[in-house]
């Protein structure tokens, strides 16, 4: 097999790199991260003619090789490092026919690195509307390269591009700009010092503040010593370089590009007049937000009910087809409900990413950033924090990654720190189940109380984010200039393929990520709950049985026993009604008497299981933490669920499901769903209900504030490059959660 061909897609943001990538690779792609940093890395394979396979890399959007963000660093680190396994054999610079001039700046820079560079001019379908005509052969000569004029929307020119990629060896690699023209003295000095190196490369090494650890060490170390000039002098040279490049580009375009303004129609101006209007702009934005929430909370419920039903029958099926026992209940009552808790959120996550990617693709998101920048700045945030805060309602992880284009480090840091307060989808399963337990399904002023509570929780999360941003802004002593440059792309109809791929990829990674954690934690908990070291665990059977045979049932066991009888009686009556028979009291009593030993045994089994659980390794841990969480209104089982959900919030339900199923042997006909189990859970000593209104509110508040997500902490560590910030986040957020729950519980109870 011949060596694989490495192709890198490079270009300004919004020129259609990802569309070209999707067109070349289809679903034949994978998304990962660059090691050490969390800039998204998209790779894929493309089959070229004549059996050649190309490895395609979709690099983050870059305006130039003078990097000013993490995203851009990735690009230049790759292009300067010949030893990187992804170092491109050929660079494909994607440009947008409407912004050709600006896009070509990056092209000239890449070309000057002596990498074979193909120029793709994308969005050819818009040329006639914009009155643009191009003389491709002439431009090819001017820029000394091969040009592919394509439209990913209309799917034209892709095959020509593939041909160009195959024959990349024929591409001229002479540079566009003679670097030494920028400042003859300075660059002649540089050339004398390093006669064998490319001048432009040296210049980049000197001016760029990137991580050079893998790159040609020796030469670079020497070159950075060569700096000798002040930073502001260097910056003036960079400005000069930029002007020179534009001269070259303008010169070429003057010959090869014609724009007939009279035939150009500009949708952008018309739309912007409304969408960025001082009043209507905000109005429309809030209307869109409402629509998003409507979709997430209302439209999603149909597929959600279906998913829930499917999992419930799956659980039932498992229970009926596997031999009864602890292992079956682990699967049927721990793992399946736990996974159901994840899958049920697929519709909501998908809707959210659908909206976010449509808003981004259409170009509208930039307008929102523009509208909100000033307001957000008051709280130490940037207009660009809007995207993370909105995405945070799906998941904090992509949201924190989306902060990367915030220029000011302080604004970016604050955004990262407060984003986890927004109500992510992982909180939803917890909220949903607790609300169903403790909030009545009544209407107030025509609004459903449960829905209202949920909305309040979203508002609380958002308020917490904004207020803590304000406090951080006042307290963090970080000097950073408030740069803010955002491009306002022209409006476009989103492409179905791009949106679909985005939604599928994001949803998939949510499901697998969370699914793995839930599976692991359910198993660990189950094992911990099934082993014990002390005698009360080992001899639970005898201890409990003998206690009952000596003293009879205690109060709670008696209640449970009576409940079983009542339920059985009701059951009998119902059956009789269906068969249209009359039952006499005597008949009923006889039936009950016959069943009594069975019921007694069930109560004893339950008591044994409960005692075992209490004395298991898990129970011991629970008892240790109980004093800490008791003031919040929780028992030790909730405590365990709380601790395990520090790994990920959505584990809460699965944990309770696992604990409750280990803790009771009998399976009552009516007590199967997790909600019903929580409903009937009582305190071991007092016999009072565990999930009261006070405990419920306290739990809701705890989940609203606490930092319970390892993956988020890991991403914060990566993005801020220090343990300080994630630890600060963990400690303060959990502290706030504890206090809020404490106050709420003590007041309400």
């Amino acid at each position, binding site marked *: 097999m011949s060596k694989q061909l490495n192709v890198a897609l490079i270009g300004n943001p919004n020129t259609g790199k990802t569309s070209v990538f999707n067109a070349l690779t289809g679903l034949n792609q994978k998304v990962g991260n660059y090691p050490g940093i969390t800039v998204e890395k998209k790779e894929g394979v493309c089959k070229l003619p004549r059996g050649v396979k190309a490895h395609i890399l979709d690099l983050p959007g870059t*305006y*130039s090789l*003078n990097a*000013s963000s993490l995203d851009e660093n990735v690009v230049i680190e790759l292009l300067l490092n010949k030893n990187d396994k992804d170092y491109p054999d050929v660079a494909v610079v994607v440009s947008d026919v409407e*912004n050709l*001039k*600006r896009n070509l*700046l990056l092209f000239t820079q890449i070309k000057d690195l002596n990498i074979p560079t193909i120029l793709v001019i994308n969005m050819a379908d818009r040329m006639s509307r914009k009155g643009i005509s191009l003389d491709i052969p002439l431009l090819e000569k001017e820029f000394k390269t091969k040009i592919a004029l394509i439209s990913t929307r209309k799917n034209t020119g892709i095959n020509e591009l593939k041909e160009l990629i195959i024959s990349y060896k024929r591409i001229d690699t002479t540079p566009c700009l003679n670097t030494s023209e920028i400042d003859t003295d300075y660059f002649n000095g540089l050339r004398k010092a390093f006669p064998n190196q490319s001048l432009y490369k040296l210049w980049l090494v000197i001016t760029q503040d990137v991580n050079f650890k893998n790159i040609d060490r020796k030469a670079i170390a020497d070159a950075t010593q060569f700096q000798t000039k002040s930073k*502001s002098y260097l*910056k*003036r040279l*960079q*400005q000069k370089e*930029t*002007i020179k490049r*534009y001269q070259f580009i303008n010169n070429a375009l003057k010959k090869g590009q014609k724009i007939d303004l009279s035939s150009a129609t500009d949708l*952008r*101006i018309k739309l*912007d*007049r409304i969408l*960025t209007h*001082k009043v209507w702009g905000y109005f429309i934005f809030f209307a869109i937000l409402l629509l998003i929430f409507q979709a997430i909370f209302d439209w999603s419920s149909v597929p959600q009910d279906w998913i829930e039903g499917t999992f419930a029958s799956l659980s039932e099926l498992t229970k009926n087809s596997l031999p009864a026992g602890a292992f079956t209940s682990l699967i049927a009552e721990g793992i399946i409900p736990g996974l159901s808790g994840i899958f049920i959120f697929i519709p909501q996550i998908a809707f959210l990413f659908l909206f976010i990617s449509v808003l981004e693709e259409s170009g509208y998101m*930039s307008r929102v*950033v*523009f*509208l909100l*920048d*000033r307001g957000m700045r008051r709280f130490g945030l940037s*207009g660009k924090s809007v995207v993370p805060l909105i995405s945070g309602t799906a998941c904090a992880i992509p949201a924190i990654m989306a902060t990367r284009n915030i*220029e000011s480090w302080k604004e970016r840091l604050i955004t990262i720190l407060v984003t986890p307060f927004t109500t992510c989808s992982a909180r939803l399963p917890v909220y949903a189940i607790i609300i169903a337990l403790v909030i009545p399904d009544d209407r107030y002023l025509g609004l459903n109380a449960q829905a209202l509570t949920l909305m309040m929780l979203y508002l609380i999360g958002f308020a917490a984010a904004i207020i803590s941003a304000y406090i951080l802004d006042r307290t963090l002593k970080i000097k950073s200039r*408030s*740069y*803010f*440059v*955002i*491009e*306002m*792309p*022209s409006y476009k109809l989103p492409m179905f393929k791009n949106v679909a791929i985005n939604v599928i990829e994001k949803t998939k990674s949510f499901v697998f990520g969370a699914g793995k954690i839930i599976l692991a934690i359910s198993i660990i908990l189950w094992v911990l709950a099934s082993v014990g070291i002390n005698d009360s665990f080992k001899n639970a059977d005898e201890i409990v049985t003998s206690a009952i045979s000596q003293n009879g049932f205690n109060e709670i066991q008696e209640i449970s026993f009576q409940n079983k009888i009542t339920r059985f009686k009701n059951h009998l009556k119902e059956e009789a009604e269906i068969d249209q028979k009359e039952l006499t009291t005597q008949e009923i009593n006889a039936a009950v008497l016959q069943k009594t030993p069975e019921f007694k045994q069930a109560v004893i089994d339950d008591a044994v299981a409960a005692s075992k659980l209490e004395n298991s390794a898990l129970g011991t841990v629970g008892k240790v933490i109980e004093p800490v969480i008791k003031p919040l209104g929780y028992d030790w089982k909730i405590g365990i669920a709380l601790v395990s959900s520090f790994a990920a919030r959505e584990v809460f339900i699965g944990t309770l499901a696992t604990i409750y199923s280990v803790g009771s042997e009998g399976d009552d006909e009516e007590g199967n769903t997790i909600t019903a189990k929580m409903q009937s859970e009582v305190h071991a000593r007092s016999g009072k209900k565990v999930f009261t209104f006070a405990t419920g509110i306290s739990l809701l508040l705890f989940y609203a504030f606490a930092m319970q997500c390892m993956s988020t902490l890991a991403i914060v560590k990566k993005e801020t490059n220090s343990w300080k910030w994630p630890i600060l986040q963990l400690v303060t957020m959990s502290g706030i959660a504890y206090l809020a729950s404490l106050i709420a519980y003590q007041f309400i109870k």
Partner: protein
Amino acid sequence: MKRTVANLERGERAIIKNVESDLVPLKLLEMGCLPGNEVQLLQVAPFNDPMYLDINGCHLAIRKETAAFIEIEEIA
């Protein structure tokens, strides 16, 4: 008095005369904010901040404080 982009009226056009290259991000220069190029103020958010500009055919928004570092002159 020196006029800068921050003083532009909505819809007004001007020519960029000088850019304080130390105080303006390089990215802005690279997007075409260079002496001699034309600039037009398209839209402003409340309090004139940020400002939505068309610089040399490139549409972008910047904050007022940055706009104040870009000196302009009337179109000849």
